């Protein structure tokens, strides 16, 4: 296994220059995610109208995987419907956490770079944190934790 599989150029790029890295002011909903094991903290802001994600942004402090994952997530989801988001959440979660998942993340554009995280079990939660946090924001929960 080569470490470049994890730290692909896209990930390094999104970590250094995270997209949509900003707050959205209320009344947009937001939620905080926290992985105390590594200290990752992320806040996801989301603005939904007519069942469409009009805008989604994040802020926080975390490892390259968690920052890049959040950046890629926001980029991908802007303009998607809530039901598309739900499918995507389940695909990502399934692909990264289920041993015999048949989901191929390569079908989801740049998000494909997350596929390899599966080979680094200790880093999976870094990649999924922002997704759980988005779910919480959409459900209007205040915070979420993964470990």
């Amino acid at each position, binding site marked *: *296994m080569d*470490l*470049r599989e*994890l*730290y692909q150029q896209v990930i*390094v790029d999104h*970590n*250094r220059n995270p997209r949509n890295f900003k707050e959205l002011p209320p009344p947009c909903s937001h939620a905080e995610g926290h992985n*105390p*094991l*590594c*200290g*990752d*903290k992320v806040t996801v802001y989301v603005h939904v109208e007519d069942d469409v994600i009009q805008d989604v942004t994040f802020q926080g*402090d*975390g*490892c*390259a*995987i968690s*920052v890049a994952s959040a950046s890629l997530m926001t980029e991908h989801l802007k303009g998607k419907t809530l039901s598309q988001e739900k499918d995507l959440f389940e695909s990502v979660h399934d692909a990264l956490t289920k041993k015999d998942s048949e989901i191929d993340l390569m079908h989801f554009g740049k998000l494909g770079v997350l596929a390899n995280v599966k080979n*680094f079990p*200790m*880093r999976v939660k*870094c990649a999924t944190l922002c997704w759980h946090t988005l779910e919480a924001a959409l459900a209007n929960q205040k915070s979420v934790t993964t470990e």
Partner: protein
Amino acid sequence: MSKSAHNLETFFDVERYRKDFPALHQEVHGKPLAYLDNAATAQKPQQVIDAISNYYSNHNSNVHRGVHTLSGRATDLYEGSREKIAKYINAKSTKEIIFTKGATEALNLLAYSFGEHAISAGDEIIVSGMEHHSNLVPWQLLCQRKNAILKILPITKKGELDLALLPELISDKTKLISVVHTSNALGTVNPIEDIINIAHTQNIPVAIDGSQALPHTAVDMQALDADFFIFTGHKMFGPTGVGVLYGKEAWLEKLPPYQGGGDMIRTVSYTHSEYNDLPYKFEAGTPNIAGVIGLGAAVDYIQNIGIHNIQAYETELLNYATEKALAFDGLNIIGQAEHKSGVLSFTIDGVHPHDIGTIVDFEGVAIRTGHHCAMPVMNFFNVPATARASFAFYNTFSEVDALFVALEKTKDMLF
């Protein structure tokens, strides 16, 4: 990097001791393992592993309760370990050595029993700003239960205790001071003798969390005069699941038991139970017999090398690592106390500690990254986490080199 391991000399024959540690001789991701996570748990010498296997293979039996031969042998081995440990830390009596599951259980036992004995609403307990959660949360829980007050002795930017503030913190409500001897997050060695002196002039008992001290330095209970002293087996080359609460006999006599069950009582009826003598009053149930015997073997092992030799060599190691760290571009050492031992905690600009951990692991270097169960310390230094290399006497200068070579890769990988 100016220096390298090749032009270094030391009095310490590290290769001789490395041979005793089977886990050190393996490759990780195709690279020789450099195990620099000793503050989390230490590796075990073959002598300790053999003591455990030998116990299970030849003497296994429950202790204290039997008249048959195996039971006598198991009891002798178990109590023999207690004697070794009492002697090693120069306790006055084996009655002062309580075996627990680990430092965490020892501290919870103490917080509970001391709390039941001595803490009422409004009383105060002082801990420091660099405690491991195990010496913080039990006191928080106690204070919640009893409506008592937990006060924090602050730390300085260098990562030292701000001792000048201690007299102000102490009041006539102060019932106990509990501080860490050596910080697992910063490596700071605290002036526990001074703290004990200050406290004792006001008749306040002191508990010392020595979990990170025992692997690196000698401790002498009678000279130190701490009222309680806590340590954990797995960090001092012993097995998991065993730790020690040392307490002065006079204190332990006064404290009520913590857990109830077999061995800790003298007589039980439905109306009345009478507790056993020390140390058994605090050792309810079948103890971790193999663990205690293994810990005895670990003490033998340390004594064979000589703890002063260990300390001298580790000072060289830490100095060498610190020098390299200071020369490393973008690296910030977290914790720059005058007196440090065993731990180099740091961050690297622009690289999250978690990524550092993964990347150096691919070079065979095992370090820990995270909050090290010391979140308040992280908050104080305003970092989410640190990377931490922590040393034992079996580490080499070359392993330190390997760490810094690996740290260079973090930059290649993430920039």
